[in-house]
């Protein structure tokens, strides 16, 4: 039932990372995360130009029931922000792997990342 996209990297906190080159990555929330959170109704995003740190919260998402942090898998500088999510947070529920939050450049560090097979195993354990 749960979708995992091959070719992406994943965090243990359920973010996906797509490296477009060695120093640049797109970041979003996984299908497992959106299912666990339920219907999302609000997103709080950072601004382009902000510095972010691997392992620290850079955004939050709110469902009807609760607010949850979104953690950065990398240290770097935010190059762009997907502001479409502000008006359509439900896109994270319907298309989690197309609903990127931010693009980060100048990456200097990252948390431990899992490949698709490892992430699938983690999800199976947590389900």
């Amino acid at each position, binding site marked *: 039932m749960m979708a995992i996209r091959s070719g992406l990297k994943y965090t243990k906190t359920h973010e996906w990372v797509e490296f477009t080159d060695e120093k640049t990555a797109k970041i979003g929330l996984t299908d497992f995360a959106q299912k666990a959170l*339920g*219907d999302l*109704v*609000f997103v*709080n995003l950072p601004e382009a130009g902000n510095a972010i740190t691997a392992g620290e919260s850079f955004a939050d998402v709110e*469902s*009807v*029931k609760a607010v949850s942090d979104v953690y950065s898998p990398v240290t770097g500088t935010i190059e762009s922000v997907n502001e479409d999510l502000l008006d359509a947070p439900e896109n994270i529920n319907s298309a989690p792997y197309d609903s990127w939050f931010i693009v980060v450049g100048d990456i200097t560090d990252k948390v431990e990342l899992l490949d698709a097979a490892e992430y699938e195993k983690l999800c199976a354990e947590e389900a």
Partner: protein
Amino acid sequence: MDLKTALYDWHVAGGGKMVPFAGYLLPVQYETGIIAEHMAVRTKAGLFDVSHMGEVLYEGKDALVNLNRLLTNDFSNMVCGQVRYSLMCNEQGGVVDDLIVYKYSDVKYMVVVNAANRAKDVRWMQAHAFGEVDIRDISDDMSQIALQGPLSTEILKKITDEQSIPKKYYYFNGDAKIRDVNCIISYTGYTGEVGYEIYMPSQDAPAIWELLLEAGKDLGLLPCGLGARDTLRLEASMPLYGHELDEDITPFEAGLHFAVKMEKDDFLGKSALERLGPPKRKRVGLTITGRGIVREHTALYVGTQPVGITTSGTYLPYLGKAVAMALIDNDFAEINTTVEADVRGRRITAEVTALPFYKIKR
């Protein structure tokens, strides 16, 4: 150890996301999600397992005087088959619980209480009982299913006869029959819509649940969880015990004057409420005008001055906006007053708004 309702197996098989609530395992939502479930109740119909609610019988010739002494509302002019909302207060005027009273006859009433308060309530009721009255907690043998939404009556008509269905809001039929099951059908609810609460012996609950789902299948009826129950009651601006009500909040602060009859003979909490005088804070609605969601127990400010606290808050799926209910100092409770909520260190602006947020014509 969490209890299971008679419908537990159905919930699990039906994709319910089960969570512990008031000592029971209940679905917070099904696969459809809170928003779809909420919208089904506003536009079509939804079905809720509310078997966790507590039912207490008052029987005997002193049943009425006991209720009138224990509770804030006046039950002396009720007719048989009528339902009435009330608070139960402590000696300080705080609220022990909010509940509804069903009148069967002059010597028989049923009181429906919140699940989380059931044990405390029954102890309180028994401790204050006098004269000829038998107080009995029958919750363990009873299940309750709530059918709510504009198509509820149409759905109910498919599985029961016309006479079994009460016609007026806050009335019930204690001799209703669904197929060959004896049940209570009550024109009440906790969603702000037309709807019914159906009480039946627990052994019959799975069959009635399935029958209702089948009858509503083509009309858009969805099973709904506790998540939608909470957003629906908030949209309808109904108080929830532990949020808008507790032992340190008086009924007047909560704006429930209609359920407190100060002119009747003595009742528990009356002298405290008289002594306290008009409340210094009141329950209001807040429309969130800033970006974000303001949830319960969030501090409110005007400038640097603390002016109150939110009691519930989320995004309302039908009205499509974030709101909260709050207890605010009278000086800042005027409609259109702007306040700020401190959400995780960030200030979000909100405007005092009239309650209810949502109301249908009855």
